């Protein structure tokens, strides 16, 4: 039994690929009891959208996106299996699906049916583009969502082209996270109203919401974000600079206090009152001139010098880290940001520990199930429930 904040919450997880499965990973980390449904006779290499590489023949997509769940094999097109699904739904708190609009109805788990079985259920559907409209039936996935929502806008080097984030999964994970928020909000509303409800989240709106501030700036000013390399759209100096040892220093001056502290550290306190750079808006407008002054200064000392002195002056500084550094870094390990998870089928795998730390109801991460791994146990529990439900009637008859 979990001690997480969602202990006792049961999730019926009819999801595949990433966006839905990632959503229920989060609910599982928070302590919910997630039953992940897989079709019988699955192909291990193509689970999790077949995303390479494989570990012991299983796509890393499946492993990464199904932590913190139990596995049940159900063919939703078979009448017997559908009966089992309906029985499970009676005692579930959350129903989650990520399929093209119309598929839930065809599988017999549209909201009208599910809410009749269980009016208190929080029913969440995730789609790519929305439930109606010209794109509703087109496939939704991370890359298309990046392209359509303008996620590359303003990302890239000044003389290049807008870059897509090649670490594809960000839009899937973002949409899954917004759906997890909505489910949690639905559970909170249920405490107040006593009723379940239907919720829908699309990748189109979730991916746009992730860019709320930048799109808001565009809508408010007509200004498309510019490609500034590592530079910020809004603050300066706020980019990566090359130091004397050739290493990169990431530096973010975002307030006037930090700017004064920075000017002290570089030994040019008079810069802080220079009218060209007096406040952030001036520094952004005169960015090139400012960089012309700062580049040689920052190239004059090694990175460790700047890290030490700027940190002491309250200026945010940092540097790029690789997997080789991250996986052993005290900051990562002491906060459980990347954690090892023991699995029977894939050995020890590393994954992101949740980024939140809850003081009273901590999160947990555990191995994904093999598809259908817990079928017998879950069906036996159902059998027991059935028997318990029938017992009083039987007692009356005798």
């Amino acid at each position: 039994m979990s001690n997480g904040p969602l202990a006792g919450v049961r999730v019926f997880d009819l999801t595949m690929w990433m966006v839905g499965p990632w959503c229920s990973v989060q609910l599982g980390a928070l302590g919910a009891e997630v039953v992940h449904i897989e079709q019988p006779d699955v192909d291990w290499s193509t689970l999790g959208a077949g995303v390479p590489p494989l570990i012991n023949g299983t796509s890393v997509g499946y492993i990464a996106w199904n932590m913190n769940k139990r596995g049940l094999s159900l063919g939703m097109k078979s009448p017997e299996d559908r009966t089992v699904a309906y029985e499970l739904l009676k005692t579930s708190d959350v129903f989650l699906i990520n399929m093209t609009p119309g598929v839930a109805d065809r599988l017999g788990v549209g909201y009208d049916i599910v809410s009749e079985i269980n009016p208190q259920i929080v029913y969440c559907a995730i789609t790519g583009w929305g439930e109606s409209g010209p794109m509703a039936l087109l496939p939704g996935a991370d890359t298309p969502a990046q392209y359509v929502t303008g996620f590359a806008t303003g990302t890239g080097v000044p003389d290049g082209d807008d870059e897509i984030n090649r670490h594809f999964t960000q839009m899937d994970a973002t949409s899954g996270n917004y759906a997890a928020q909505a489910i949690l909000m639905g559970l909170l509303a249920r405490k107040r109203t006593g009723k379940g409800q239907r919720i829908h989240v699309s990748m189109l709106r979730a991916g746009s919401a992730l860019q709320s501030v930048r799109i808001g700036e565009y809508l408010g000013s007509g200004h498309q974000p510019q490609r500034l390399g590592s530079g910020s759209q809004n603050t300066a100096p706020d980019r990566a600079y090359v130091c004397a040892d050739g290493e990169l220093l990431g530096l973010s001056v975002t307030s006037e206090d930090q700017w004064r502290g920075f000017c002290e550290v570089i030994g040019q306190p008079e810069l802080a009152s220079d009218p060209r750079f007096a406040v952030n808006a001036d520094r952004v407008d005169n960015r090139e001139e400012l960089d012309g002054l700062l580049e040689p200064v920052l190239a004059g000392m090694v990175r460790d010098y700047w890290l030490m002195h700027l940190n002491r002056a309250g200026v945010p500084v940092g540097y790029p880290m690789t997997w080789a550094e991250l996986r052993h870094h005290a900051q990562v390990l002491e906060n459980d940001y990347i954690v090892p998870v023991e699995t029977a089928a894939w050995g020890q795998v590393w994954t992101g520990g949740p980024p939140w730390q809850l003081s009273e109801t901590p999160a947990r991460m555990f191995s994904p199930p093999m598809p259908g791994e817990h079928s017998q146990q879950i069906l036996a529990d159902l059998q027991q429930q059935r028997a318990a439900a029938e017992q009083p009637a039987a007692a009356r008859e005798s």
Partner: protein
Amino acid sequence: MGGPLEGLRVVELAEGVAGPYCAQELSDAGADVIKVEKPGGDRTRGWGSRKRGDVGVAFLSANRGKRGIALDPDSEAGVELLRKLIAGADIVITDAGWSAAAALQYDSLGELNPQLVYCRFSEYGKGGPWADQPPYGELVAQLAGDGTGSLGAIGEPPVRMATDIAGMYAAIYAVMSICAAVYARDESGGQRIDVSLFGSILVMRSTLWVALSNPDEWWGFHLDSYIKPPDTGYHCKDGAIYFSLARTGPEQREQLYRELGMDWVEGDPLFELVKIDTGGGGGRYSHLARPVWERALANFTVDEAIEITRRYGGWAYPKNDYEALVAEAQARHVGVIEAVEQPGVGTLRQVAPPWDFEGTPAAIQGPAPQLGEHNAAVLAEAGYSEAEIARLREDGVLAS
């Protein structure tokens, strides 16, 4: 009708993107949010050159639907006032740069209000050697967590995501954990939550960490991001598209070659790569095959290229900038953008909340507050008399 979080009271002691966007999401979902600013105001009010009137649009886009008060959090009377507000609140959102006053830290506030859910943002996390690093470093968190693996050319300095993803990811995770903690409150009481920008970037890359756990074979994760130049889409006559032929058969591809006028392709030295490249940046050699595709696509508009690719079973989508996103028929149909009346600024369009709740609809609750706009109203609610409010103003505890 109210949103799903109707009845919850939030006090926001934060600035920048992460804390304010987190509180804005709670407001969109129906919570009553009081934003507290220091006398100088949230620094995003003065951000950049993108302003309407004299207010940074970034501020207006992360602070809608809140009431605002402005006070000196280091004055005794200011601290007392905040503690009065927090005593009656459900949720406090704060960040590492806001106030160091001991009476505003969790140990003291949790005693004052045992049911309080207190969420604190930091750069790098609650523990560890970097716990006390200066706050508000979006770039610092992006660099540390995202490294050079997914943006920029291999061997060149890393490029940052133009969207503030570290702050936004952290805000999204904070909303999740806050809702979960409120859900558990009846059993476990209030609690402290810590969320960091760095940790949020790292968890968003979980698939990569799993991929690096002793894989059967390794040449870069998923779409080979470690070994390829930046992916910028496939250029057509008037813009770029994403396309993928992963789900098409050989016959459909033959037809597609013909339709795109690629009769020269068999003589092209890269044809062998084109045959195994499914487009979309997906194949190991797609960056090498790209010029071949682009030679053909240069003769077609984005709309034509998308229509043709879809006709032969492929995936195709436009590479939109924000102007194109806002104009996109589907985006208009599902209501990606909504208008807010912002006093002193006029009608302002913003990104709508991303959830559809059929029972308890979420909605933008109103404009962003002016600095100290609701000082009198919020203090009166907290039991302060008009004379007391005037006194606090004279003493400089209240700003504006």
